[in-house]
């Protein structure tokens, strides 16, 4: 069977399973719709949490990010797992003891304030909507690349599947589908990793293979360090991302942000007891760790395979580089998608991939500007003149960059070999995991499995996010604030309508990806870290914390984080409106916008503390609530 048949078969089987579960697990009460009836076992919930949490980003993008940043990529590994320690120790058991359905509900009751509840709903919706856009895009891309449908059709099929089990089953349907999705995705992730680890190091366990030896007896990581260093890149096992401080802040932001993501927190409302919530966090991390400890092995091995595919022999020898006409089939497949691109700058018919001090990128900018210029000159538009002027400016800028880069390039040994810039002008990091089985020449069913795994990762996370959105709308806004007298049956219907609305909204953004889609990680994690996490933690750990402190803290944390992200990335990510530029020299203490959530959280804590001590103590009921949630059985 060819790859396409396998893909249809495996993806088809998984989709039938998801729909079967939807029919079997229809929610009959609001408790079933919001928290799956509160009777999910800790291990089952741990597995569902792992699928809920691991998105298209974890499955598809993370290994690629690590492959091209080496040691610096550790921030993702530690950040996205260490958050579960915070969740288990600081939030999950107490919120489970509280025993209701949503995160804003707790915030509203603990701080005896509808304002706090509405602010929490707003944060939750912004976080979850930005997050869900990426998932929808992942579904569309996976379909269009592997099933050769167009992007929109793929998106509609994905929406239809989620619609079926999320609207019918609510949290109950989502939970049991996520368990199946976890099995699919972890199998899909580890099988190719095992094969590749075997091929490179002879060890079938990737976590050990990463520390193993390659065929010539040198350790894999030592070999990789040497290979990338010879090509002018930073040493793999020691290259830092930005600075140590940036890595520290980045890790902290991801950890706090993970612990503050509402769709993850509500999963702990589904277990029967407080002690189960703790245990469930442990199991969730076990299931997550299986993928997260495999990812660095996938990353390093892919980087080595990729470099050695292109640099086949001695650097500087004519025979050392792969001839373009001999490039492997996977290379050609990915070129078609535009995610992999080669330009023969020195015209030798071979591929050079190395650290060129920015020369290749600058030359590419010139090519683009020239194309725009000739386009504008041919155009009879009324604003053709301004287009010409624009592209001329771009051209001049590119020329200047080329001159600078050429000076730096001349210093490198590569200039002496007749190399004229890095010829791999596009290597999209997302292709690493998807192309991995092809690079390692694995059979068709493995490739099909990876597609099904990527879809499972994206769909399971999308469903969890959609549930968080719809329960915030139907339970917090409708039942909690607008119409408290609504009957349970009506609320259940309303939550289904809200779910349909959320899916439609996510689909709309999937079809028309807004400019800010690229900045979603910064926004979603930054907001969760700077607003939701601190307010929850203070609500549990400080009896003195009052309404004024909580609201002021949330707004301050949110404000600082948004301001920092916007000033470097543009207001709502519109490039022209960034007023400090994205340049590193303007970063506060060298902290990148993606890593700023930790600072926002500190601001939130400080403001909340100061304001609460200047205002009245919280009422009796709030203090009693805190005392009640702190102890499990009473």
């Amino acid at each position, binding site marked *: 069977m060819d790859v396409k048949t396998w893909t249809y078969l495996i993806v088809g089987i998984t989709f039938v399973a998801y729909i079967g579960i939807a029919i079997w697990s229809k929610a009959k009460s609001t408790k079933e719709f919001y928290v799956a009836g509160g009777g999910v*076992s800790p291990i089952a919930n741990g597995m569902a949490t792992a699928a809920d949490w691991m998105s298209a980003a974890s499955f598809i993008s993370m290994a690629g990010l690590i492959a091209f940043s080496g040691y610096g990529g550790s921030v993702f590994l530690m950040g996205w797992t260490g958050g579960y320690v915070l969740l288990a120790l600081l939030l999950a058991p107490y919120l489970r003891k509280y025993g209701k359905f949503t995160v804003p509900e707790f915030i509203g009751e603990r701080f005896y304030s509808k304002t706090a509840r509405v602010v929490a709903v707003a944060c939750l919706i912004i976080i979850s909507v930005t997050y869900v856009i990426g998932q929808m895009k992942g579904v569309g891309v996976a379909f269009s690349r592997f099933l050769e449908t167009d992007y929109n059709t793929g998106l509609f099929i994905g929406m239809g599947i989620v619609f079926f089990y999320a609207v019918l089953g609510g949290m109950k349907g989502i939970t049991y589908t996520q368990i199946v999705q976890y099995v699919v995705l972890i199998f899909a992730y580890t099988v190719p990793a095992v094969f590749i680890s075997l091929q490179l190091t002879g060890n079938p366990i990737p976590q050990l293979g990463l*520390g193993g030896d390659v065929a010539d007896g040198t350790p894999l990581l030592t070999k990789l360090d040497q290979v990338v260093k010879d090509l002018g890149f930073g040493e793999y096992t020691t290259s830092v991302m930005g600075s140590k401080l940036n890595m520290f802040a980045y890790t902290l932001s991801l950890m706090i942000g993970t612990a503050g993501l509402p769709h993850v927190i509500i999963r702990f409302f589904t277990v029967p007891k407080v002690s189960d919530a703790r245990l469930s966090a442990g199991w969730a991390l076990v299931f997550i*760790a299986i993928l997260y400890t495999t990812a660095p092995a996938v990353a390093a091995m892919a980087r080595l395979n990729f470099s050695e595919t292109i640099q086949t022999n001695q650097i500087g020898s004519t025979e050392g580089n792969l001839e373009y006409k001999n490039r492997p089939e996977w290379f050609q497949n990915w070129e078609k998608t535009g995610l992999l691109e080669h330009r023969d700058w020195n015209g030798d018919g071979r591929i050079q991939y190395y650290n060129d001090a920015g020369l290749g990128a600058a030359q590419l900018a010139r090519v683009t500007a020239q194309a725009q210029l000739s386009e504008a000159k041919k155009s009879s538009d009324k604003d053709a003149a301004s287009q010409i002027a624009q592209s001329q400016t771009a051209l001049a800028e590119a020329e200047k960059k080329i001159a600078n880069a050429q000076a730096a390039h001349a210093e490198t040994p590569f200039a002496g070999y007749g190399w004229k810039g890095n010829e791999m002008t596009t290597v999209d990091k997302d292709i690493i995991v998807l192309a991995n089985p092809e690079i390692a020449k694995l059979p068709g069913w493995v490739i099909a499995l990876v597609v099904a795994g990527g879809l499972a990762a994206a769909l399971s996370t999308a469903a969890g996010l959609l549930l968080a959105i719809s329960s915030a709308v139907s339970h917090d806004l409708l039942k909690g604030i607008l119409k408290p007298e609504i009957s349970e049956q009506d609320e259940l219907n309303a939550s289904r309508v809200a779910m349909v609305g959320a899916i439609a909204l996510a689909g709309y953004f999937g079809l028309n990806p807004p400019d800010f889609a690229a900045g979603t990680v910064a926004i979603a994690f930054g907001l969760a870290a700077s607003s939701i996490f601190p307010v929850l933690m203070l609500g549990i750990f400080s009896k003195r914390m009052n309404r004024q402190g909580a609201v002021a803290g949330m707004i301050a944390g949110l404000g600082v984080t948004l301001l920092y992200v916007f000033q470097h990335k543009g207001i709502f990510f519109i490039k022209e409106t960034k007023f400090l530029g994205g340049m590193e020299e303007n970063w506060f203490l060298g902290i990148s916008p993606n890593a700023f959530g930790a600072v926002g959280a500190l601001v939130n804590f400080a403001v909340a503390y100061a304001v609460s001590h200047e205002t009245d103590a919280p009422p009796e009921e709030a203090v009693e609530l805190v005392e009640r949630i702190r*102890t499990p059985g009473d």
Partner: protein
Amino acid sequence: MADTKSLSERRQAYWRDNIRIMAWLMAVWFIVSYGCGILLVEPLNKISLGGYKLGFWMAQQGSIYVFVILIFVYVRLMNQLDEKHGFAEAEEPSAASSETEPESKEDA
């Protein structure tokens, strides 16, 4: 012992113990990730662990394993603490629903 003290005294004692357990575990959490994985990574990299440099291994593997162990240690210590102060949860109300299987009688 639990019966002779008032609820609020028991709650206070429980919370003090809880904070102590948390502080210790959080210290370990900090040391393995921020300490070994970031701040002290260069000196640790001088030590090798199989084909790994130790600092790199802590950052990309070791810290994750320690996180998992930490949560299970926390689960155990907290269950003991629940017992000690008489806050262990009753098995009864949730016994039926804590099985892995969902309440299939409703779904049939």
